[in-house]
């Protein structure tokens, strides 16, 4: 039951917990219940596995144990160990196997326990999965979903806290999705699994236990890739962001409104590749200011990309220099005080917006 792109889907967008934004009244009333981000992902996997026999899961500790973060919990019980495959610690091999299975029509969903391990399997991801269709002149397609959690905030240090969205976005051939709410996570993951392209589906460790509203399993919905969602309406500055930073941006927007009288529009990109610049420029047309925020490294990051595109595609909209905020160029320390210092979170967002608005 595929909800056709755009309109109908947009109708379905409903706010979850922790989201303070309003979508100008185009919510559709559906029977909602509260669920966690983990639960939403788990449901998306279950529903797609029920729907399509070719969908299978592969990764470390995901089967009998249900995943280090319990995202795949109970799925082995329901689907058996031939559809939920516990692997050895062999990221390169199982990533390559996912490609092999996908080019003959299977739809593997690979879990990387930490998205940092992208670097361990980087050849298979960027030299193989992302390129296979192109190198074969379109003869094959590679419907692999690579999913797992990224990000800081829990003091995991340099090798377990990186955000890899900008890294994935740098290479053509792979879609990049990074939802911020249970609702979006479920709708986008279902779409990602059905998509014929490889998709990196980036979760965030700070979001796993957050709750939000979503329709019950009976009411299926899909969210198209490549559609941003305005999570808060405003007039002075457009903040584009995604994943956990959305919540930081919404909090920053609240503070800016309350204490500084600055009205921010917060655009949740949701999909980092392709970027829904149309929605962003629409917003900037109103606000005249753009701040692109993300948790991956600022240097050569998605924020810089958005700034560059703004000056390529819509420079006339900008009333102030477009800006970006990302992780500081350090390897991400363990110590909570140091980690807090380098994350591009609420305080930095507030400070940057104040600079941009000259207040």
């Amino acid at each position, binding site marked *: 039951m595929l909800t056709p792109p755009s309109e109908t889907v947009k109708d379905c967008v409903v706010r979850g917990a922790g989201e303070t934004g309003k979508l100008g009244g185009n919510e559709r009333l559906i029977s909602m219940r509260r669920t966690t981000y983990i639960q939403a992902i788990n449901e998306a996997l279950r529903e797609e596995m029920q729907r399509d026999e070719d969908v299978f899961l592969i990764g470390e500790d995901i089967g009998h144990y249900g995943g280090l973060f319990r995202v795949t919990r109970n799925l082995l019980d329901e689907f058996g160990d031939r559809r939920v495959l516990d692997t050895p610690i062999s990221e390169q091999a199982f990533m390559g196997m996912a490609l092999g299975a996908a*080019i003959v029509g299977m739809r593997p969903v690979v879990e990387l326990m930490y998205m940092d391990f992208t670097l361990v399997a980087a050849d298979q991801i960027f030299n193989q999965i992302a390129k296979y269709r192109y190198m*074969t002149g379109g003869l094959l397609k590679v419907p692999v979903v690579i999913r797992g959690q990224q990000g800081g905030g829990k003091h995991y240090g340099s090798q377990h806290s990186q955000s890899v969205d900008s890294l994935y976005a740098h290479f053509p051939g792979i879609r990049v999705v990074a939802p911020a709410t249970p609702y979006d996570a479920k709708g986008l993951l279902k779409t990602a699994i059905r998509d014929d392209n490889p998709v990196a589906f980036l979760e965030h460790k700070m979001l796993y236990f957050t709750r939000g509203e979503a329709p019950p399993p009976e009411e299926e919905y899909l969210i198209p*890739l490549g559609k941003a969602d305005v999570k808060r309406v405003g007039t002075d500055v457009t903040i584009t962001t995604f994943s956990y930073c959305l919540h930081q941006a919404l909090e920053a927007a609240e503070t800016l409104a309350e204490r500084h009288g600055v009205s921010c529009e917060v655009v949740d990109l949701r999909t980092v590749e392709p970027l829904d610049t149309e929605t962003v420029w629409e917003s900037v047309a109103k606000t005249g200011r753009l701040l692109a925020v993300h948790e991956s490294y600022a240097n050569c990051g998605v924020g810089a990309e958005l700034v560059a595109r703004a000056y390529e595609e819509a420079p006339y909209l900008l009333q102030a220099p477009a800006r970006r905020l990302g992780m500081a160029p350090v390897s991400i320390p363990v110590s909570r005080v140091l980690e807090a210092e380098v994350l591009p979170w609420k305080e930095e967002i507030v400070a940057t917006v104040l600079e941009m608005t000259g207040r």
Partner: protein
Amino acid sequence: MKLADNATKMGTAEDPAIQPNSEAAEASSGLVTPASITTDVLPSDSATDLEVPALPTDLLIEMYRKLLAIRLMEEALLAAAEEGQIGGAMHTAIGHEANAVGAAYALQRGDYVTCTYRGHHHGLAWGMDPGRAIAEVMGRGDGFAKGKGGSMHFVSPENGMMGGNGIVAAQVPHAAGLALASQLRGEDRVAITFFGDGALFQGVMHETFNMAAKWKLPLIFYCENNRYSEMTPIWRTSSIEDIFLFPRAYGMATMQIDGNDVEVVHAAVSQAAERARSGLGPTFIEGITYRLAGHMAGDLETYRPPEEVEKQEAYEPIVVLRSKLLTRGVDETAIAGIDEEVDNMIDEAVAFAEKSPWPDAAEAYRDVYVDSAFRDG
């Protein structure tokens, strides 16, 4: 000269066993011309001879055509490369052909294959059209991948050829994934993957050995051991002489065979495929072979003495099969007739490729993503 010991172990050759060139001891790898073969299948751990049934002469003749087509195509490609018609990295398989041809005929329609950047022989053995193949290598619009993949990425899904690869060993887990798909779907398809001796030192090989053995995937690991990785002989980089011992550590069935004899290759791959189809899991085949041409077009071959190559020319796949055909009663004129036919066929293929237009510039931007994104719905 460690690997030379193999020669003894693998029986005496029809030609006197070739000794390593002593002046060039450093540069030579102790070459062998295996005639009988040793199989080495766990758990018996005993070395027994693989039974090599004689194949029907008709089939051998068909295989001979393939060997020759591959050889002539690659010689034409080398000539085109010298003329500057082909850039990049073009690796020919001159001397390796029997590994691909023997294997292809031992497998069934519906089986899968992946291979390396050195994949012309697999492509043609698996039924790809030489004209479109040459066009692809030349970057023309009629190439099977519209000139996007080129020499290193031979692919033809309708023939089960699922792709060559420019990264050493990357294609190996791909084949494991194909075998996994077959297993999960309850099909009886087998996957085979070709790689070189140098690929044994890429970690992903070992990860795949373990998973394939553990999950009993219907998979054949086929190593074309030409005893060189680019310009470096294997004895300079391998900690052991017999590389089939690496996969054997995973409890995998292994065979070390003569990779220059299509009949031997056919027998070994047939046996491995049978094992795979009966759920017994993967087999590792080490086909001893030799690369007669350079590592890639333009290789000056300063790292091995010409005599080494010359000696190997006496025991290369076409020589071996031709003499076999004569022994089996096919006469010289019949063979000469085939030679001419194949020669004409390749000439036509070259002509087709050379006439093929360049791809449209807009083609550069297609195939990055699937346009209609959804499988269904």
